[in-house]
């Protein structure tokens, strides 16, 4: 296992599904990493939404797949929420620095 030192938000977003284990392109700004993570969370949400719709229409034959998709979407949302909390905390910490 190789240790890679990156910002906390970066490594958190590397846990999203389908992500490679690389740390992202060098020089990629934090906002881009944030956007990428949010896009993947939205993707998961959209997939869960589509599957639930198909279930309501009776077009899906594997109920377990729908449930797992909704679980993944919920986990992604919780992760995004926690990341947002941490970012806010960090921001407030910095704003408290006396000039």
């Amino acid at each position, binding site marked *: 296992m190789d240790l890679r030192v990156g910002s906390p938000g970066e490594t958190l977003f590397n*846990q999203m*599904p*389908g*992500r*490679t*284990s*690389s740390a992202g392109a060098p020089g990629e700004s934090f906002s881009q990493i944030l956007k990428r993570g949010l896009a993947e969370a939205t993707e998961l949400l959209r997939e869960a939404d589509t599957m639930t719709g198909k279930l309501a229409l009776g077009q899906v034959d*594997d109920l*377990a*797949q729908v449930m*797992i998709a909704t*679980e*993944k979407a919920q*986990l992604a949302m*919780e*992760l995004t929420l*926690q990341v947002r*909390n*941490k970012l806010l905390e960090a921001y407030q910490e910095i704003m408290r620095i006396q000039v």
Partner: protein
Amino acid sequence: MNMFRALEISLTGLTAERLRMDLIANNLANVNTTRTRQGGPFRRKLAVFASRSQGAFGYFLKRAGLGDSLVGGVQVVGIVDDPTPPKLRYDPGHPDADQRGYVALPNVDVVSEMVDLISASRSYEANVTAANAAKYMAMTALEIGRG
């Protein structure tokens, strides 16, 4: 480690066990079927499971950053017929009796099918428990920084 991978692996287990349930239900429904499209009595169907880890190739795929979610889990590689010979019953009045008066019945044993049914449903339950446990672990991990 991708925290969603445990969920996906459990999903493959759930799908495989559901397929096994379908086959068992099919076997039970056709326990007295003497006529099939291929000729002869119905033959008991079995599912063949294989694990989805790809060995060395999967390792290199993972190193390249691709195919991380392909490693782990179960897949159904085939549905085969049970090779045991069909049961013969002497019944000359039956429309499917052969010249000697024997009817070939499916090689489905109801008792062993029921046992397989229980096994499949318990395996399904075990996979659901594993998925719930994985989700619980991920949610608790998200609480590390709280407070």
